């Protein structure tokens, strides 16, 4: 991986019930993620994706680019900047910003169409 190079883009469309499965897997049952009626009552357009599920897609884009070894991801920081929704495709796009001594640092965005849900993400990978 060289500076300026893009890593393999990850595209995934969470189905309608994905937030329920992630709620069970993670233990985060905040109703804004799983109850469309509750979400509307508090002023949201509908139930929204868990930010940490979206972060997990950014993490996965990186471990997959590094050959699938979970040990390759050393650090990941993200800023949540928009609401993500079920049944819309999420694209994770990462560009290599720095590469030296087997360490790669990327700059990453996760978006649904024009809606950037994660911005200014920075990941550090160890490539052996």
């Amino acid at each position, binding site marked *: 991986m060289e500076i300026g190079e893009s890593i393999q883009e990850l595209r995934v469309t969470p189905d309608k019930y994905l937030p329920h499965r992630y709620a069970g897997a993670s233990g985060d049952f905040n109703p804004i993620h799983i109850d469309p009626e509750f979400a509307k009552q508090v002023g949201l357009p509908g139930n929204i994706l868990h930010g940490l599920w979206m*972060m997990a897609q950014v993490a*996965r884009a990186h471990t997959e680019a590094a050959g699938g070894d979970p040990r390759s991801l050393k650090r990941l920081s993200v800023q949540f900047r928009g609401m993500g929704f079920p049944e819309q495709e999420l694209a994770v796009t990462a560009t290599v910003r720095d590469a030296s001594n087997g360490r790669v640092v990327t700059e990453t965005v996760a978006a649904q169409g024009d809606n950037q849900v994660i911005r200014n993400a920075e990941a550090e990978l160890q490539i052996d």
Partner: protein
Amino acid sequence: MALKTDAVGKEFASAEYEVGREKIREFANAVGEASPVHQDRDAAKEAGFRDVVAPPMFCVVYSAPAMGPVILDPEVGINLATMLHGSQEFEWDEPVCSGDVITTTPTVKEIYEKDGKGFYVFESLSTNQDGKQVVRGTWTNIVRGI
């Protein structure tokens, strides 16, 4: 209303989490981590792990029992109804495998006001049963309209 910052530096009780194989599988499936090292013991061992290994973001599962009480602490004083997850950072060390017992200790790092919003920054340190650090987390929650 002025932002309460008394809780900065407050340390909270550590919480233990025992990692189970089925929980790793369930989490890996929910986030789409398809590698057999998250599903199959033999594949994990072949790749050099003690047992089925957790995907990096599984840290949110074993950190949760420690972080929950911090967010709900009356001294911290977060208004949950207007709270957003602002940003998140994790730094990983030793991999986490089925059978590990992870201890997480949370701290309140910073509470400050910016643009009419309250920023609450928490840190978590997680170690395994051998005392090795597995992850350090920095959790930033934003509360609107303080």
